[in-house]
């Protein structure tokens, strides 16, 4: 029993995290809002050079062969800076989907993900819209009982504006005559895998987003003075932020366990991911609610950076399985006669 991340995993997170904090500034994110694609080729190139786009690609295909457990700490860092680029989607969802499909598709595209020559993203019809379809060299699209591997030109993408201007979302219509790469049970299994992976990625990003909003709120309330002292010295303000810290602290191990369960193909993985997504989105939503409150009117402005992080948290709450989807998963288990409940039911 060792429920800790390794020294190496933390070191890796710290080094990539430092890069992200230096490079992915609120100014750079705002610049992206004004650009037609909303994506920053120079940043993606730099991430490629760091090797992070190919982290989860197997070593045999030129990647680093890292697992969901290795990547989940990094996904939190992506949340902390509200990274607009689809790194979490590519590494945590698209790459495992390619691996699951295998064959020529994997052999062709995994090396390109690893060397940064192609962007591959995955979308689910369950999410209604696909993230980043406009910049994808390959869009893996799960719809009904079919999985498509779509090249530009094989689909039309209708843009939909999100509350988070960094998110670029598209309704996908496949051109006639395009055949799926998988159908039936095999496609369903890959769709389920994509959903679990995507939900874990959203949950991990929500942990980072919540931490960022706490940090911003602590800094703001330590500085802002009213009644002759920093507003952060008032208990009403402190207790708002303490409540966020409590929810965040108890969401973290749920996310770590979900990553481990995906890595080990635990039979409870779906439920563990549901737990992680619900707990992390709760923490991030509470962080947003209390952070805007303690920022006062400043928090309601476009100019103050808080909304960059609030809006991403709001958006992630509904995607990769909304709360109803994940709660139904947990509730079905609790109604199941053989559910392992009680003091000895957590670990197998």
């Amino acid at each position, binding site marked *: *029993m060792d429920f800790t991340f390794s020294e190496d995993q933390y070191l890796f997170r710290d080094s990539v995290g430092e890069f992200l904090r230096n490079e992915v500034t609120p100014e750079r994110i705002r610049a992206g809002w004004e650009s037609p694609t909303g994506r920053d080729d120079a940043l993606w190139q730099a991430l490629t050079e760091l090797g992070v786009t190919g982290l989860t690609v197997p070593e045999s295909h030129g990647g680093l062969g890292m697992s969901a457990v290795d990547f989940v700490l990094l996904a939190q860092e992506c949340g902390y800076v509200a990274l607009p680029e689809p790194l979490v989607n590519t590494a945590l969802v698209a790459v495992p989907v390619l691996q699951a499909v295998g064959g020529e598709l994997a052999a062709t595209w995994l090396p390109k993900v690893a060397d940064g020559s192609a962007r591959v993203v995955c979308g689910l019809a369950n999410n209604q819209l696909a993230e980043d379809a406009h910049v994808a060299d390959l869009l893996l699209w799960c719809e009904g009982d079919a999985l498509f591997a779509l090249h530009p030109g094989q689909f039309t993408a209708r843009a939909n504006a999100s509350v988070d201007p960094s998110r670029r979302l598209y309704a996908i219509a496949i051109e006639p005559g395009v055949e799926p790469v998988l159908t039936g049970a095999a496609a369903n299994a890959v769709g389920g895998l994509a959903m679990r992976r995507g939900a874990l990625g959203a949950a991990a990003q929500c942990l980072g987003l919540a931490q960022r909003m706490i940090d911003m709120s*602590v800094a703001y309330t330590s500085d802002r003075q009213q009644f002759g002292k920093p507003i952060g010295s008032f*208990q009403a303000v402190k207790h708002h*932020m*303490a409540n966020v810290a409590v929810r965040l602290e108890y*969401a973290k191990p749920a996310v770590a*366990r979900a990553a481990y369960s995906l890595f080990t193909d635990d039979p409870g993985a779906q439920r563990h991911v549901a737990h992680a997504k619900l707990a992390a989105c709760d923490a991030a939503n509470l962080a947003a609610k209390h952070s805007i409150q303690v920022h006062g009117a400043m928090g309601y402005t476009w100019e103050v950076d808080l909304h960059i992080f609030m809006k991403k948290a709001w958006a992630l709450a509904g995607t990769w399985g909304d709360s109803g989807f994940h709660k139904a998963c947990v509730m079905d288990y*609790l109604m199941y006669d053989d559910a392992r409940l009680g*003091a000895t039911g957590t670990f197998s």
Partner: protein
Amino acid sequence: MDLSYSQKQQDFRAEVRQWLAEHVPAQPLQTFDTAEGFAQHREWEATLNSGRFGMVTWPEALGGRGCDLIEWLIFEEEYYRAGAPLRVNQNGIFLLGPTLMEYGTEAQKARFLPRMATGEDVWAQGWSEPNAGSDMAAIRARAERKGDKYVINGQKIWSTRAVWADWVFGMFRTDPDSQRHRGLTFILVPLDSPGVTVRPIPQLDGLPGFAEIFFDDVEVSEDCRLGDEGAGWSVAMATAGFERGLMLRSPARFQETAKRLVELYRENRASADRDPAIREAVMQAYLDAESYCLSTYQTACRLSQGGKIGAESSTNKIFWSELDQSMHATAMSILGARAELWPHAPDAAGVGSWLDGWLFSQSGPIYAGTNEIQRNIIAERMLGMPR
């Protein structure tokens, strides 16, 4: 990361499970807030100790097993799974015991620990005073040094288990000119000393689970001082420290409550589903109990690898106390019109022990540092907000 139990851990679990199956009383004991129930629980402590299960983390020389924190969690899981009795000497074995091991002299360890382990000495705590509750540094009870004795005068209150306990530990002001947390000394006092008056205070259930203790020129020998004179605050902080706090409420207790709640919901589904909030609350109870377990394992693993307790541990008490309250509130909602009935009422079929648990859950956000104080600690020490 490896979330599987080693063979040694699995063997330990099997041993605990078997021993408990053979020894846990078939009939539940009476509550330890009655004289008879207290005696039954004292006897149970002796039984546990005879199997070296009284305090598994204690060293073998003291009747323990030198278990690490993961083994301790396994023991707790089996203990609550088996429905074994509550621990009447919790203040002693979980709080004072580890502090004695850290600060006690060899003579003190030999004198107090074995008798604590067998339940021969049951300990009460003496932190609060009428004017020192959340503000513990406002302690006024005096201990005046006279030769090799201390003479104690003053009052303690909310002393859990003090009505039938043998000893009380607490902080007393040894330097009359001192302020706040300076000049306090940690002293152990026999409750049968001349000059000690214990006045029981009935709790919400009508039973005297705690008491006031009055000290009138109570003489205590110097060898009952734990740590240096004037160092009481730091000794007490160690007692209240997280590792002890962690042991006060292991996740197993709340996971078993969550399990009973799920079962109660299943049994009463037809009526419970008329209130959609109940279904949601049952699910949240399961998830939060699970989160508490995961978090505790994570902390235990970090500590086993030499990690330090961080300020984030102060989130723990808020989390479990609010979880406990919410689980019992949900059970009360499910029980509806039967919720107010005591289990011995003739028409109270199926109410279980939820009412007792509901009453007790009201105390969680208050004792061991109110949740408001905990929130201040989180904001100031963990988040770094201004004082």
